[in-house]
């Protein structure tokens, strides 16, 4: 392990996009597949400059579409190269066909996503629907809430995904603009730390002429279920690896993240927000202000949604009286007629002896900031439900009600 003396860390002030590019550089990626779409583009701009400057030796490919980006990544990862790609919004969807083939062939491609609302119409703002719509495709997936966490999550995700016990692709998500374009202090590690944490990528069965293998041959219907089961198990069995990697990350880099959930001021909380991503930063301030006024409110932030930590969510949320799910995504015609997080929360709580009331807030939609007074308003709704002992309605569109 590196000692403090020989570690050359440095603080820089960069945004989430550049933090992601820095992480790819530290991971010494071999192949980068780029295609422009706001807001993630800045990551690829930064990487292009690093390659042009000779700071990073990688094949930088300007692809002809997101579908091609993911196909290039699939081909390169299948050959044994460490791959980095990314996208936003409708770009994530344009590549949709590739998500299942990549996880099905167990290629640990890494994709950075800076969220963007889906069309129509062309809205640049962050909404998690782009990445969340792919959540069941066999990719590891989670959100960071600031640039430092984004940097860290990329390295952590490579380490988990490339672990021979896991071999799964990863979507490393950050909110468009709130993380991707807001600068913050980021500690860039010493390359020795990264070397210690992230061994070189070595796939067990790459496309290598010396050891011929066939990837993805046609199967008969009865051969499908065992392969699907294997992929489902890979997801489940990644869970202990995810925890172990987070612990090792903390040892080497000194930043400790809970792999699954961040709990903020939840010790004696009666009502909590449950959310993902950047709005957690505002939530922390709002909660502090409300705590000053004696309101027992807290926050549980989901850091990893795939694999979904069902037990952890149940244990964490069963303690409270009311849970307000902040969606930041669209689940048109879904269980709650709001977003898709609600059903993930409710399903986790179903087997609990102490089920809190759960309601869903459609907030931060279209990339709107969730401002402090909206957090206060939502908290009032949670407290009203606590008082009443039941919810008024499942889904509130914040800003459209009094």
């Amino acid at each position: 392990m590196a000692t403090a003396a020989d570690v050359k860390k440095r603080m820089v002030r960069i945004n989430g996009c550049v933090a992601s590019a820095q992480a790819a550089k530290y991971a010494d990626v071999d192949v980068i597949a780029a295609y422009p779409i706001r807001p993630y583009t800045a990551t690829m701009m930064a990487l292009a400059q690093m390659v042009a400057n000779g700071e990073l030796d990688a094949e930088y490919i300007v692809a002809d579409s997101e579908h091609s980006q993911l196909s290039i990544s699939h081909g390169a990862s299948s050959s044994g190269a460490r791959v980095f790609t990314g996208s936003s919004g409708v770009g994530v969807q344009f590549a949709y066909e590739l998500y299942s083939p990549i996880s099905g062939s167990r290629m640990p491609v890494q994709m950075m996503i800076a969220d963007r609302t889906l069309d129509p119409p062309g809205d640049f703002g962050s909404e998690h629907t782009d990445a969340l719509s792919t959540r069941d495709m066999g990719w590891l997936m989670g959100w960071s809430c600031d640039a430092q966490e984004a940097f860290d999550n990329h390295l952590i995700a490579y380490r988990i995904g490339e672990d021979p016990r896991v071999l799964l692709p990863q979507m490393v998500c950050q909110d468009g603009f709130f993380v991707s374009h807001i600068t913050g202090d980021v500690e860039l590690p010493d390359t020795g730390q990264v070397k210690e944490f992230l061994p070189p990528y070595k796939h067990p069965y790459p496309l290598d002429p010396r050891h011929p293998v066939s990837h993805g041959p046609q199967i008969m219907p009865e051969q499908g279920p065992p392969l699907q089961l294997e992929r489902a198990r890979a997801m489940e069995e990644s869970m202990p690896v995810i925890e172990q990697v987070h612990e090792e990350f903390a040892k080497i880099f000194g930043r400790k993240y809970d792999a699954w959930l961040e709990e903020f001021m939840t010790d004696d909380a009666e009502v909590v927000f449950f959310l993902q991503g950047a709005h957690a930063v505002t939530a922390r301030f709002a909660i502090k202000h409300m705590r000053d006024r004696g309101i027992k409110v807290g926050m549980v932030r989901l850091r990893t949604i795939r694999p979904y930590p069902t037990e952890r969510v149940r244990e964490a949320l069963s303690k409270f009286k009311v849970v307000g799910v902040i969606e930041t995504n669209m689940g048109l015609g879904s269980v709650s007629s709001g977003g898709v997080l609600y059903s993930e929360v409710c399903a986790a709580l179903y087997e609990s002896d102490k089920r809190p009331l759960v309601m869903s807030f459609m907030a931060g939609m279209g990339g709107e900031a969730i401002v402090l007074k909206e957090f206060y308003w939502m908290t009032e709704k949670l407290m009203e439900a606590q008082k009443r002992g039941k919810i008024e309605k499942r889904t509130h569109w914040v800003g459209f009600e009094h």
Partner: protein
Amino acid sequence: MPTIEVQRQLLPILGSPNQGARFFNPELPSSEPFVPGHRTCAGCGPSIQYRMTSKAAGDNTILVGPTGCMYVANSSYLCTPYNVPWAHTQIGSAGSFTAGVAAAYEAMIRKGKWQGKFPNIICEAGDGSASDIGLASISGALYRNHDCLIICYDNEQYANTGIQASSRTPYGGMTTFSPPGPEVPEGKKLFPKDLARMMAAGHPHCYVATASVGYPIDLMNKVRKGLNNKGASYLMVYTPCQKGFVYETPRSIDLGRLVVECGLYPMWEWNPEKRAYDYSFRPQTMRPVSEYLKLQGRFGHLHAEHIAKLQKFANEQWRMMGVELPEALIQAADAKNLVNMSAAAEAETVAQTI
């Protein structure tokens, strides 16, 4: 950054005669990267092409197979005909997946993560993949000039899905998406996309050529030229489909010659250094299109006017190659003359007069 120079393979060009080679060729390696035992149909043109192509390439090769016959009929889980690495990719990912493999090897060799000569990277895309859904991905790979060879095995239709029209299906070709009927007597109304010329015109730095399974040595030499070219190459190969064309199984190679002899499949090479087409390939004889059409059930519904249209199309191809047209072929492009000839026997006599 210290980098390792990438070493590339150089495959010798076969000295055997360009035409009529149906004998054992000692110049070819004995290894078989593509072995029997797969589930392709008897007489399958694409799989004949596959064997020739992979044999010409040798063992330091990686094959990419977008969805199509050569994926569905060749590869069966727990059983594979490929003695070299092979990967399936999506039908629209022909060029992009291949580009990923090529980029990976460039980076891995340069960074010392893989030792050896740069492998031959060959993509075997059907004409549906190459002319329709994967066109942009292939154009991207050619444009960016990855060191790879992209082959379109052109059986002029989507065959493994049950014979549907593609942009390469010829005028008058019957498929399940272009059936003839009283309102549409010719079946397919559109002429095929001139895919290979499109690739040559749009990516003039690439080696581009057309070939046919009827001329094995020529095909294998074009494969080797494509692989030897440092950068991207594109090869479009005529590969008849017994199931879709509806012909007698043993006649695949004959069709591969007839299609060239009747001018429906012009054979040429695009020379990226000279930036010019090379039309020096000449079939031994020229024939009217009817001789090619009459062997195939997919053209059985055509009327004289449709055959004349196809002859006119073939004549345009000959002219593009700078070939002077015999009077008989000019006559055959007029439906009135064809009606006079009417009988197949008469059409054959035309051929002998050329």
